[in-house]
């Protein structure tokens, strides 16, 4: 019995370790490749350690690699993404919080229908919105601009943020609101003084979720951006798929890591909240 148990433990730990290697291997390959020179890449293989560590590929990926005709590296794309992500996350989170508050604590006739309408937005394949959105952004002079991208991300992120906050606020006892109303507090006072101070966990989950989604987005980035508003994912894709020069895999890998770094840092610092967002989002799909 004990022997059999030990056998099972070995099987369990063995498969878990193999899985860990499987998930980590691409990261290892990306990192080691980014530190090699092209000569070393040609002579070695995927798993060989860099003998002559050099940061030249990182430098090139950041400031001088060519993405098509333009050769200023990923730097401008990176800052475009920052300029897009900050307002988009802030606005969609703020709207989501207020919507969630109304839909859970100030329900009115028809509010469930509004909730259902906003919720269904989560499931829609965004392809059906692309063409009309492109026309509309053009009409309002927001085509190929960062404000246009912010707008699209706010509209399409609203469903998730509203859902997150509503489901969290439903758990706050209604008695609390009633007591505050008896004391003469109104709609905004209750929100600012009672609800908001209790919202730190869900705020963290939502901000991290929205940040990761918007930073990683490629579809809206590639359709709605112009020459000087392209986000980092588009920059990376252009860089890695440029066919004009000899393939420099070390630069590609450094660029991929630069694009991944912000979300990886957030994940490492606040993984617990990231996972909570994933499983909360799972209910909605």
């Amino acid at each position: 019995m004990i022997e059999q148990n030990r056998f099972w433990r070995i099987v369990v730990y063995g498969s878990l370790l193999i899985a860990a290697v499987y998930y980590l291997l691409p990261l290892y390959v990306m990192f080691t490749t980014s530190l090699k020179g092209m000569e070393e890449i040609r002579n070695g293989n995927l798993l060989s350690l860099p003998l002559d560590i050099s940061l030249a590929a990182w430098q090139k990926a950041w400031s001088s690699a060519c993405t098509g005709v333009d050769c200023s590296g990923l730097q401008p794309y990176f800052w475009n993404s920052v300029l897009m992500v900050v307002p988009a996350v802030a606005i969609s989170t703020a709207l989501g919080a207020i919507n969630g508050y109304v839909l859970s604590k100030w329900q009115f006739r028809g509010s469930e229908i509004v909730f259902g309408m906003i919720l269904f937005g989560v499931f829609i394949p965004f392809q059906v919105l692309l063409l009309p959105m492109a026309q509309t952004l053009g009409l309002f002079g927001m085509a190929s601009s960062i404000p246009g991208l912010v707008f699209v991300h706010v509209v399409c992120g609203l469903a998730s943020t509203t859902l997150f906050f509503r489901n969290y606020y439903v758990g706050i006892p209604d008695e609390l609101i009633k007591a505050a109303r008896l004391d003469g507090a109104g709609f905004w006072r209750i929100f600012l003084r009672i609800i908001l101070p209790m919202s730190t966990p869900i705020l963290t989950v939502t901000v991290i979720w929205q940040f990761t989604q918007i930073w990683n987005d490629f579809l809206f980035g590639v359709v709605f951006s112009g020459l000087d508003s392209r986000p980092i994912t588009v920059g990376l894709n252009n860089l890695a798929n440029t066919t004009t020069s000899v393939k420099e895999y070390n630069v590609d890998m450094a660029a991929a890591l630069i694009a991944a770094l912000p979300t990886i840092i957030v994940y490492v610092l606040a993984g617990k909240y990231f996972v909570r967002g994933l499983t909360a989002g799972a209910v909605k799909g």
Partner: protein
Amino acid sequence: MSHTTQSAHYGFAERWLPRLVLAPSFLLSLVFIYGFIAWNGYLSFTRSRILPNYESAGLSQYEALFASERWWTAVQNLGIFGVLFIGGAMAVGIFLAVMLDQKIRAEGVLRTIYLYPLALSFIVTGTAWKWMLNPGLGLEKLLHDWGFASFTFDWLVNPDYSIYTVVIAAMWQSSGFVMALFLAGLRGIDDSIIKAAQIDGASLPRIYWRIVLPALRPVFFSTLMILAHIAIKSFDLVMALTGGGPGFSSDLPATFMYQMAFTRGQMGLGAASAMMMLATVAALVVPYLYSELRSKRRD
């Protein structure tokens, strides 16, 4: 007296303020989601090419779509990709969840490792796997160095196999997600059921197969929905990994739609393909939501 006027004043504000506050989001989703779906639907019945042209074309865009070899390649690829990706991610994820549920040391570290790919953009994943799978310096070279001189691996540039490289990368990225969902489900199961079965002499694999996993049916279905949804929307990964190529051998409906609508000046055709994608998602989601809501009402 003054007290009643005050509460009446609040009554008015409280009646209208919530509606007023919700109005912007309501309008945004009404116009920019539902209005746009209708607009896109309208476009799919017009002659629009590079620019929108609202002359009616009847069903001709759909006829063109269903006559397009490229569209059927994309649909077939979605079938292959959907089945293998969902099946693979499900199998790996459930297996890892069960293994992690065996009171493991360092569970937190392992979970962190299994889930980090989800924080990455599909473009990053695609770029990384494109390098690893490239014939010449990637996996092929590694196996040559290890002594398998005749090993060839050209799936990335082979039209018959390019879609399978998308499956490989997508599984790597999303199987951890399945693990997280099932692990949460497993943690919700009462330990005493397992203990009772153990006392009856059932082996551990048998207990999981017969008792624990069947109890996770709801988790299974919601995971299935999410993965199917990811599969239908898959776009970034294909763009970064194969660009839909070689030729259009690894196109999916989402990349087909993008190519037609934004690079090849076939707006009407693109709109029609987007409507087909919406119809597919609706066919999956509506029955699911319906049964979810019904079971909730029953509770």
